């Protein structure tokens, strides 16, 4: 009797703490909604489609921030995905055994560097380089919307670049884990039919396709929420522009910059509503990414361990 009661106590106590984690996630959603209802009530859907952000006149349209966040993240994804997959393939399929651990560690290190350090480096090192590149863009190309505007260095292009660097360790580490879980038999089947090495790798990537998509989406989720580094290099100008040269703004950046300046309640609620949307989008993207990775697990019957990058350092 004592024994079962004791076990029940143990189970209950630890479960209570586990429930706290669950509650936190729910509470974040509720709190964000509660703290933004003024803005939600006043603007409704216009909040998401309005392009004017003028706290002085009480006009709050969040479209430029949504645009900036999505555009910068998608650009980052376009740059980071091939690189991340290349790294994952190199480490799991091509690299000599003795290089695997060090390379894994070094790429994980990119995830350990604080965002603020990326930002500092972005302002003082990357921005001048990007500016030189922008100056070097030939005139005919400048007619394209992608390269229009004065070459400032700060702007969408720099932000996308720095985001790409920051996303690489996340995507590549999951993709590497996925490739590790692709059965050797798949590669053997390909080799036995006369595949070259690359063709066998493509078979492995094909087998892990859904997991790889999950890895890419996980990186996307990271990029969407990234704050400091982007804030420091994107130029913080709310406008909807396709130009890589144009200073723009993101959802996270506007919260970081203006939160403590929000003098009236409506302003604050408008900023928190942006936070709410960011929360919803990142949860959706992360959940979707996990679904993809789970469907990969079903296929292999093995668990793909998804670790926060910090754990990777310890348990790798």
């Amino acid at each position, binding site marked *: 009797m004592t*024994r079962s009661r*004791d*076990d029940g*106590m*143990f189970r209950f106590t*630890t*479960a209570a*703490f586990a429930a*706290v*984690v669950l509650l936190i*996630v729910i509470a974040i959603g509720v*709190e964000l909604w509660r*703290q933004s209802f003024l803005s939600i009530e006043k603007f409704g859907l216009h909040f998401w489609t309005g392009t004017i952000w003028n706290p002085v006149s009480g006009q709050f349209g969040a479209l430029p921030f949504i645009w900036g966040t999505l555009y910068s993240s998608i650009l980052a994804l376009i740059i980071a995905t091939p690189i991340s997959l*290349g*790294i994952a*393939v*190199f*480490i799991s*399929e*091509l690299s000599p055994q003795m290089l695997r651990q060090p390379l894994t*560690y070094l*790429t994980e290190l*990119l995830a*350990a*560097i*604080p*965002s*603020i*350090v990326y*930002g*500092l*480096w972005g302002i*003082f090192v990357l921005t001048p380089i990007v500016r030189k590149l922008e100056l070097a863009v030939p005139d005919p190309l400048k007619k394209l919307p992608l390269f229009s505007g004065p070459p400032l260095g700060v702007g969408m292009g720099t932000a996308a670049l720095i985001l790409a*660097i920051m996303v690489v360790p996340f995507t590549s580490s999951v993709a590497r884990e996925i490739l590790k879980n692709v059965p050797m038999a798949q590669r053997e089947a390909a080799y036995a039919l006369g595949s*070259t*090495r*690359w*063709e066998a*790798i493509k078979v492995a990537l094909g087998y892990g396709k859904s997991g790889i998509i999950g890895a890419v989406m996980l990186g996307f*989720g990271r990029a969407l*929420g990234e*704050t*400091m580094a982007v804030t*420091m290099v994107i130029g913080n100008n709310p406008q909807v522009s396709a130009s890589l040269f144009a200073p723009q703004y993101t959802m*996270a950046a506007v*919260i*970081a910059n203006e939160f403590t300046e929000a003098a009236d309640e409506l302003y604050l609620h408008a900023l928190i509503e942006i*936070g709410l949307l*960011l*929360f919803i989008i*990142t*949860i959706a993207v992360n*959940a979707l990414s996990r679904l993809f990775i789970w469907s990969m697990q079903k296929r292999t019957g093995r668990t793909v361990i*998804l*670790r*926060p990058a910090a*754990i990777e*350092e*310890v*348990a790798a």
Partner: protein
Amino acid sequence: MRYATRRKIVSRVAEALCAVAVLLALLPLVLILFYVLKEGAGALNLAFFTQMPKPVGETGGGMANAIVGTLILIGLAGVFAVPIGCLCGIHLAEYPETRFSSVVRFAADVLNGVPSIVVGIFAYGLVVLPFKRFSAIAGGVALGLLMIPIVVRMTEELLRLVPSGLREGALALGATRGRAVFTVIVPAALPGILTGILVALARVAGETAPLLFTSFNNRFWSLDVTQPMASLTVQVFTYAISPYDDWHRQAWAGAFLLVMIILALSIMARLAVRRLERMNRG
């Protein structure tokens, strides 16, 4: 060209491109570490550790308050996150297959993916608004929330590394489950969990966004956790976007210090876990 030859060339080129991808990722890593070292190490001096920030226009001074502030903030974060994270992790490791566990695991993953700035807003609503004041406690709560998912998953995984023989041995001796966990399993994984916590602390020590409107900033020396508090990261941010060269110099020094702390902790953790694994195997 023969098709077979072309395929082989394609394969070679693709393999080479994968190697290039690795170099492309290592390039920014090297560049960042290089600049942090070059700009930061030079700017680091005794005053940086011992003095307070000087008023605008005066050169010199240091970040003594911010260094202490960061330590206090991550201390608070640890106090807040470690009990919740560890006990939650223990539950997940002990009852891995229940529905509740998978929901909690999912929640931890979701929390891990929530942007830190959003967690900052939550801490603002939770602590700053009710007390109508920015405070170190609010910052600690924000950082703690960010730490929890890391501690949870780390504890769970490290507990699973503990050989099952140990647990069975304890249970065979008639220990209850709770007893077996706390007297046998957790102690066996403890070095790993402790180093894991260190890494999680190092990780949140680098956070800036959630501190901007929780612990805010403070130009003065303060140990009062109910008051705004300076932190290395916010201070680096403030200095980085300022127009003064001397502040830029100090921002680099702060970045250097941050990176060194994180590197040291992660290397330490790595060594400790390697030892733990060897112990378990041997």
